[in-house]
């Protein structure tokens, strides 16, 4: 049983096909609501956590403990005039934030979420290549950022976009190689290692333990993907004002902002799925989703601590790090994975 069949059962009175059409519609709706709620929660957690680290109280005026602050903020952003610079490249300028947001939602839709109580599996997409699709979705977001940087015809934005390109090129290859090691290890246990659900279910020991180097490389790559400090070179606020989103205001800026926090949550979920056993755990038939959320949230808090306490690395040093340290490390990790799989049969 999963969400789709539960919904189809609920709408069974309309007949077989209309019930499934309605079920798909509502599933999509739930998906988007989940993403939006998690974004709002993410920003709220970030602001409260940042405030506590900085000996402040954080938002506490709107609603109890400031819970409604984010809704007030998003209303404010939506109500603001969205200024369009006169020198822009019109179409890319308008669609860039949408691309970022679409990439984010697609990424969330491709994750397996595990079982929850009586509903059954919460997974939305059942594909045999969902791992590939996930990384394809993750690769969409940089395109939006680069488009935004170049189409706004602002020198800060252009420098930010070019830094973004250099950054993406230098961490994506180590990232994919460390995922390849996982697929290698999983292929000994399952016929379909590219399916994320299978990849999670074969983790009797979380892959983070035999693949500790891979976990490090992948986590660094995910921090760079989400682009927060220390790897926020492309939007470094003290140098390039706001990088690729310099010229954006109102809801368009809000989409970039949500893209940032969404990708932090998304990358935390991906790391916990791939390396920390995802929704595996005791009683995972009922509470798998809860395990996933807890692991994800712990990673999110670790990410926030890194964000708030580490200075920004210089772009040339990051490119150096990507090619000189991360890439060799990921290749060594691949060899270790091969030895573990073929030699020891883990």
């Amino acid at each position: 049983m999963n969400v789709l069949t539960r919904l189809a059962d609920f709408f069974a009175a309309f007949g077989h096909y209309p019930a499934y059409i309605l079920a798909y519609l509502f599933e999509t709706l739930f998906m988007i609501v989940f993403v939006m709620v998690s974004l709002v929660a993410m920003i709220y957690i970030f602001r409260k956590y940042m405030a506590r680290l900085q000996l402040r109280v954080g938002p506490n005026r709107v609603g109890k403990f400031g819970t409604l602050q984010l809704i007030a903020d998003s209303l404010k952003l939506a109500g603001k005039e969205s200024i369009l610079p006169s020198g822009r490249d019109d179409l890319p300028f308008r669609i860039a934030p949408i691309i970022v947001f679409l990439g984010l939602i697609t990424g969330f839709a491709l994750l397996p979420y595990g079982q929850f109580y009586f509903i059954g599996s919460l997974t939305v997409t059942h594909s045999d290549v969902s791992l590939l699709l996930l990384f394809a979705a993750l690769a969409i977001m940089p395109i939006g950022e680069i488009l935004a940087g170049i189409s706004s015809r602002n020198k800060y934005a252009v420098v930010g976009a070019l830094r973004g390109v250099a950054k993406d090129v230098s961490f994506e290859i180590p990232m994919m190689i460390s995922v390849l090691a996982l697929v290698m290890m999983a292929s000994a246990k399952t016929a379909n290692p590219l399916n994320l659900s299978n990849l999670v279910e074969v983790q009797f020991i979380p892959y983070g333990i035999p693949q500790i180097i891979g976990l490090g490389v992948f986590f660094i790559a995910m921090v760079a993907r989400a682009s927060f400090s220390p790897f926020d070179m492309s939007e470094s606020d003290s140098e390039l004002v706001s990088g690729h989103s310099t010229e954006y205001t109102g809801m368009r800026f809000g989409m970039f902002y949500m893209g940032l926090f969404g990708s932090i949550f998304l990358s935390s979920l991906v790391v916990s799925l791939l390396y920390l056993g995802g929704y595996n755990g005791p009683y995972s038939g009922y509470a798998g989703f809860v395990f996933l959320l807890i692991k994800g949230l712990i990673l999110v808090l670790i990410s926030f601590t890194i964000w708030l306490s580490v200075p920004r690395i210089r772009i040339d040093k990051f490119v150096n790090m990507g090619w000189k340290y991360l890439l060799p490390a990921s290749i060594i990790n691949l060899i270790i994975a091969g030895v573990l799989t073929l030699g020891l049969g883990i």
Partner: protein
Amino acid sequence: MIEVKEPKKELPLIGTMKAMAVVAKHLFQKPVTVQYPEQKRELPDRFRFRIFLSLDDCVGCTLCEQVCPNISIHMQKVDRENPRNKRKIYPDVNFGTCTVCRNCEEICPTDAIYLTHVFETARTRNSFTYSPEELSLPEDEVVK
């Protein structure tokens, strides 16, 4: 003269984690901020902001006008019986430009002009100038 030492070199990553631990330690400390309109920190005795004027004591010597570095004080004619103030001139204060340097309080020969603890002087009027009569009233009686 002492030569400053460069800090001990930390291992990569380990050093960063130590620095993160220093920051994360503060998570369990109490916030230091004060939620202003509800909570108010007690003010030190010497804190000064709002200028008061005792109309009976003012002799209209214009010393405060002269010593004001920002030209925030101007003398105004006020129709009021005061045997000590024959010229009937009293200072008004523009709080928009007042820098609270306390020179006027310091120089006043009769202690007619003095500063007090009151600091909540926000007003909706465009002008921040307090006329001599307003200066002698408590803050909540001043028309805002």
